């Protein structure tokens, strides 16, 4: 698969230099980095059961809800605003 990624200029220059000194292509170094990341930290879906993923998401969603309530400048609930937006 081909992927196009925007990389900061300075970082790319450093990895090009590293590539030249190590004798490995930027492509090889990039693949190595991806493999290392995945080996060190498998994605949550592989290590989290359905129950804990559900609970974790709902907790995160409720933290967002708390931030919304704290920052509210309109005292209606978000659902009330949504319902109004639908023309009720």
């Amino acid at each position, binding site marked *: 698969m081909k992927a196009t990624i925007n990389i900061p200029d300075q970082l790319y220059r450093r990895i090009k230099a590293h590539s030249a000194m190590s004798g490995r292509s930027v492509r090889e170094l990039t693949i190595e980095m991806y493999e290392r990341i995945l080996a060190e930290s498998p994605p949550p879906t592989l290590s989290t059961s359905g129950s804990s993923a559900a609970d974790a*998401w709902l907790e995160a*969603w*409720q933290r*967002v*809800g708390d931030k919304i*309530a704290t920052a509210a400048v309109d005292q209606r609930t*978000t659902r009330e*605003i949504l319902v109004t*937006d639908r023309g009720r």
Partner: protein
Amino acid sequence: MLVAAGAVEDAAHDPAAEFLVAALRSGVSIHQPTLTFVEVGAAVARRTADPQIAAASVAELLRLPGLVMHSLDLAAAAEAAALAGQTGLRGADAVYAATAMRTGSMLVTLDRELLERVGPAVTSMTPADWIRASAGPGS
């Protein structure tokens, strides 16, 4: 329903959260039209006047386990329009109902007008009704 599940100040928070966690634990897919993200982002932005919080709410919603998003392409729009014509649903409501119809999903919503108008084409209920139905008779 998703919005109520995340907002403890919402009168329907408890049944919405209870339904959602039970549904997610069961591993079912949650089918949503992409319109959901526009509506939630817009409502949060209007409530908080904070674009970062609005963006964060949409980003978190996109991490919903089991989420399957459905774009409003021409075929989906035609189905929603036909359903709106048959039932008298409002435009956005018809998009949600048509998504449920297309995916063979149950429509779980807090919206009384949507529940009343959607008709037999889509199985629909409130989160509280779903919890009662799941608990079975005598419980």
